[in-house]
């Protein structure tokens, strides 16, 4: 690790030295060019531009091209026009199912998660000595939630002889239902897992709450507003920009959910947890159906683009911006 970091470091110093040399009057032309903001801007963002072209743009365009082909990775791609896209909607019940499942998951788990995050944030906004500790405890699940360790744990908790049933047994609810095996409950185990990770959204809300001037509440109290009125009239409107940010990020994350379904439910039972990203992976890397998988990827991109633009458009109506200095 240190070995790799050193050339990087000396490279930085080289730039500084080189740059200082150029500062000499002799090189005034270079100096002017290099120091014009047009150049310096591009110099700084150059790494990203390169990465963007190589690792994003070229692959995206290749995905688009491949989505019009039949491609099994071994023989060269064969152009088939829109066939993949047509097949998605006319002759692939699993694709439709995966869309439904993903939409259900996203539209249930994201609002639930944000509601929880907001509620707990409100609870924790009362300062006490223990606040940092509470904050940490509530945050930890969201830090580990995506890991394999948690996925494996979840599987154990919700199995028919798992901890959840054992605990229910204690309060004399006797059941040996396999929460993961039951088509009706399986998706909920994943939703619970998502909601359990409300920590980072909570932190953002917490910070937002702290920024609301106390004077607003004082004024409202004097006017005789009760707790609920204060919440709905002051807190919520002022938090809308943060809700907006959280919503966009969580929606996209929701659509990309893979590991949890891959490990915990394997897409089952009855494909009831066959998330879009999981089905895409199966199509590409299990059935050698790369063209189709690429078509699915592009369709996913379109869905996310539409959703985000809808949210952005709608934000004019519900996101409240205080007058900003910028």
């Amino acid at each position, binding site marked *: 690790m240190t070995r790799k970091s050193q050339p990087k470091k000396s490279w930085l110093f080289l730039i500084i030295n080189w740059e200082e040399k150029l500062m000499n009057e002799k090189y005034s032309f270079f100096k002017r060019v290099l120091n014009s903001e047009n150049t310096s801007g591009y110099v700084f963002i150059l790494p990203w531009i390169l990465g963007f072209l190589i690792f994003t743009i070229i692959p995206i365009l290749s995905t688009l091209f491949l989505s019009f082909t039949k491609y099994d*990775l071994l023989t060269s791609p064969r152009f088939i026009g829109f066939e993949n896209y047509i097949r998605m909607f006319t002759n692939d019940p699993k694709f439709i199912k995966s869309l439904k499942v993903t939409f259900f998951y996203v539209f249930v788990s994201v609002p639930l998660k944000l509601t929880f995050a907001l509620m707990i944030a409100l609870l924790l906004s009362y300062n006490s000595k223990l606040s940092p500790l509470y904050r940490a405890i509530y945050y930890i699940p969201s830090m580990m939630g995506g890991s394999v360790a948690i996925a494996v744990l979840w599987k154990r908790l919700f199995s028919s002889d798992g901890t959840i049933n054992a605990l229910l047994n204690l309060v004399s609810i006797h059941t040996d239902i396999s929460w*993961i095996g039951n088509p009706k409950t399986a998706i909920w185990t994943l939703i619970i897992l998502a909601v359990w990770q409300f920590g980072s959204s909570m932190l953002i809300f917490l910070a937002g709450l702290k920024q609301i001037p106390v004077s607003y509440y004082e004024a409202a109290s004097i006017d005789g507003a009760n707790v609920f009125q204060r919440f709905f009239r002051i807190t919520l409107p002022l938090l809308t920009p943060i809700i907006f940010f959280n919503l966009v990020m969580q929606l996209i994350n929701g659509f990309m959910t893979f590991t949890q379904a891959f490990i915990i439910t394997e897409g089952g039972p009855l494909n009831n947890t066959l998330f879009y990203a999981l089905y895409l992976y199966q199509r590409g890397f*299990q059935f050698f159906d790369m063209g189709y998988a690429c078509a699915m990827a592009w369709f996913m991109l379109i869905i996310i683009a539409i959703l985000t633009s809808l949210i952005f458009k709608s934000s004019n109506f519900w996101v409240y911006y205080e007058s900003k200095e910028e």
Partner: protein
Amino acid sequence: MKKYKTYSILCVLFVLFLLLGNIGLSAEPITLRISWWGSQTRHDRTLKVLELYNKLNPNVKFETEFGAFSGYWDKLAVQAAAKNLPDIIQIGYGYLEEYAGRGLLAEITPFVDKGIISFKDASPAIKEAGMVEGKLYAVCLGMNAWAIAYDPLAAEKAGISISKTGLWTWNDYRRFAKKIYEATGLKAELPFMDEPTNILAYYLQQNGLNLYNSTGTGLGFSDPKYMQEILEIFLDLVKSGAAPHPSEYAVTRSLEDSLLVKGKAWLYWLWSNQFVALAQAAKRPLSLTLPPRGKNPGLFLNPSQFFVISANSKYKEEAAKFINFFVNNIDANKILLAERGVPTSSKVRKALKDIVDPIVKQTFDYMDLAARNSIPTVPRQPAKASEIKKLGQEIFQKVLYGEISPADGAKEFMKRGNEILQGK
């Protein structure tokens, strides 16, 4: 002077070292990549055999890639795409045609002709099993067959005796399952829920049919009633409680986590080589018997796994040598202990008979029994078999969960199955 002496000794040593080194390295040092799936037991035993081979052939080193079954095929598919397959690959029968058909595997015939790989102690069927369209691609590592493991004490308690030779009918199967459930509360596990096409194939073969047609371009049967019948049998058992709810199987679980091991079930369908692990985990005496009989035998002796050589391998001949060692060497097989199924070589079998433990012996005996109740050929597994298996799993689940009727399930399977096989 002294210095000179030391120098000369050093020089002599150096020359000797070079010479010795050269002798030792007379064969070019190579590294073979080898991959397999399996459980911890298999990993440990296979690694030991690789060690042994390396000791005997110091120029051959191994780079191993192993894991569990579930992720194995994904990885392999990706490597195939990268033209980066290991030299030696363990492959299942259902995947052989797919990989051979894609031109990913090397033909083995030249090595058999040269005598590097020997089939002389194996039955001709073993060699044939590794052939795709008349060309030999794969070497079978062991034989297994479908079987039923059961708890004889549970049957006894319900006053039922199950013949070791499995002379029971499907009706008996249903009746026994219900009776034992009533008497003991123990269930009969659903068959092969991660690959339920097995039970369908079994039932079809009993009716003189096959799951796939002979060209691999369609299903081998046109009447949905067979699938409907087999679905009805198990749906009935699920409904009556004599078989567990399908949700128990929604998530793949190990043998060790099965209801039978946990003492909640009395009957378990399995591949015969899995019996060793099952019996050890169950910690109570279990018996093996043939599945219910029909008009014709439904079993076949199945090549459990194969080793194949990838077409992109640089060391095909060395790979072939190792495969031969793996299959025919007695010391190697004394380490492996039939963990991949009953060995194909009669000599190896004879050598193992005396040392294998009683449980392994049970599987050996079962294989003898199965051999007498099998169809003569190994049914074909077309290139799209893996997709058909996924479809079968989906349909079985839908029906057993009560989402659709057995009749509709059978029809859907026929329709979509044929579409997949026709490459639509």
